[in-house]
């Protein structure tokens, strides 16, 4: 068997490059807790609107005593409910999202707020938004004829402004 020394060197370099990438991702996962949205939690899409955390009056934002915010959203053709959400900057956010029908995806452009919403499972993403402004929240998984018309609006306001407003329950139900 013949393997050229130059080729051996190249194979070692290639191994090094792959190894470097793996190390970076593994260390960011293990030491900085950067994970893909992975939250294996089954839910019955057919009855989620009837009771529990995804009933209509529970949707929107909920702030705990420590100031952590949970955002509950139901995705259904062709919209995200509630339609308008106001959030503060630089605050730990937990998005919990479910689909009432087919597979949707959600993405806030130019941020890492992204997940698939697969019916039957709760999609959970933890993130923080750092820049105030108006963002769309877009469906990025084909879900039927109205796929391109499925979005809602997020308004991100400064932390100080948020604290001044002392939002009790968010904008959960206004359309």
């Amino acid at each position, binding site marked *: *068997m*013949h*393997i050229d020394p*130059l*080729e051996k060197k*190249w*194979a070692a370099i*290639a*191994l090094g*490059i*792959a*190894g470097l*990438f*793996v190390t970076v*991702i*593994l260390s960011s*996962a293990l030491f900085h807790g*950067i994970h*893909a*949205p*992975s*939250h*294996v*939690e*089954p*839910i019955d*899409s*057919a009855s989620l609107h009837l009771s529990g955390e995804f009933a209509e009056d529970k949707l929107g934002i909920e702030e705990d005593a420590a100031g952590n915010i949970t955002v509950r959203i139901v995705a259904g053709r062709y919209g995200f409910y509630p339609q308008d959400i106001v959030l503060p900057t630089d605050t730990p956010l937990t998005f919990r999202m479910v689909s009432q*029908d*087919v*597979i949707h*995806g959600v*993405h*806030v*452009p*130019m941020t*890492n707020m*992204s*997940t*698939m*919403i*697969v*019916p*039957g*499972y709760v*999609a959970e993403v933890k993130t923080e938004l750092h820049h105030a402004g*108006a963002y*769309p929240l*877009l469906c*990025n*998984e*084909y*879900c*039927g*004829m*109205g*796929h*391109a*018309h499925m*979005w809602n609006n997020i308004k991100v306001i400064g932390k100080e402004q948020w604290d001044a407003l002392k939002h009790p329950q968010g904008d959960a139900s206004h359309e």
Partner: protein
Amino acid sequence: MNNTTEKTLALSHFWVAFGAFALACLMGIYQVIERSGFIGWIQSREVYYASTSTHGVLMAFVLTTFFIMGFGYYVATTTLKLPVWNKTFAWAGFWVSLSGVVLAALPLLTGAASVLYTFYPPVQAHVLFYIGATLLVVGSWFWCVSMIVMYMQWKKANPDDPVPLAMFATAANTILWLWTSAGVAAEMLFQLIPWALGWVDTIDAGLARTLFAWTLHPIVYFWLIPAYIAFYCLVPKQAGGYVFSDELARASFILLVVFSLPIGFHHLYMDPEQASGWKLLHMVGTFVVTLPTFITGFTVIASLEIAGRLNGGKGLFGWIGALPWTNHLVLAIILALLMLILGGFGGLINASYAMNAMIHNTAWVPGHFHLIFGGTTIIMYFGIAYYFWPVLTGRPLFSNNLALIQLWTWFIGMVILTTPWHILGLLGQPRRIDSVHYNNLLTLSWEPYEITMIFGGLILVGSAGLLIYNLAKTQFHVTETYEGEVEYAEPIHPVKALPAYLNSFAMWNWVIGAFMLFAFGYPVAQFFLMKTYGSSPWGY
């Protein structure tokens, strides 16, 4: 050797492949124009999604499967110097696959299967679509059996000799495909078909996505391996040189087969139904599978350098100019490698999941795979077609110049099409939208890119037309005859004997089996172990 039947067999497969390709190109240009919203009367989301679904199925499943089968039959006969085993059986495979395509085409074209080529339950297509797609795969299994039988026949007659490299790689692809297609076959047979027939009421979308992910990554290598075979076994000879290393080529093919299988979860990074540990595991595998591509890049460029220097090229880069750029296979590989470099970079971003979150399911993704698949892979299919057509039809190529223009225009069109796509992805445009009119200022910044993409698309359609024209002219209007056969490149250091692990897949099948059990065993089993809720079918 009189191989007229083999030639007809290969040619028939190739025509189905390129016919599907031409039709899909027309749909592609429709889609990019419709989406931009610039021409009012062609707007129709129903037609758009029917078209996207058909475009994807034709390109990803029909073009590839038929091309690979035709190519495989001819490579097997010419490298092993054996007639195709049981010709009736081979033709049966062709007809099973073709009837599957026709069955699937009926609902696709009438808008009753607008579920895109990845199927997307619980959006439900007409059952004929699922049955047709399954038959296409079943027909390809006939091909797998033919390849394996021929490989065994040859091995029996030549027990101690190295299997010719091109056949070794074809066998690798056969094994890869049998393992790969098992995932989607299970999804079809146990989930989609019974559900579409109404035998079961609900479907577990999480399980369906997991099974599809099993298929979704290695299938890309199934498409790519013929291009790699051309890289290693056809191009060096055409360029006037030798294969730099036969052994390492085999090692690359083995690595591709073994490591492309247990890594499909990088398509599920953003999915909720699998835990992060499994995603990390599949991520590591994803980086391992870059190794054979790095090695292939090196070996192939080294082979080209040998050829360039043998042709009189001097200095550090002089050999590049000395390559026969007017040979269509050589030009094809140069353009293919350029696109592989661009697309490979995008792939690394996809594979790293913190970065993946930024571009997941955005326009970046189709931009990326149009470079790798629509660029690198397909351009090698073109090169192979130009090389094989004279051999298979017995007529010299109608026009070498047209072939070169076709390859260049495909390259240029693809770069113009995919660059804006990548930018749109970074700007947050979702993939698979039939219009770009969100109620938001952001989307205004998308418009100039939409216009650019139309230009790219037009160039590509023109290029596709040139390909079909040239091939048809060659076969039906050229009157001279051509007697050549396909010639395979020799390694620079001839291979006399090989250890069994580089000359047989017996051991590797066990390795793959173990890896697959490890990577998919629990992730599939969990759906049966925990309480899950299925979904009812939905229309569009």
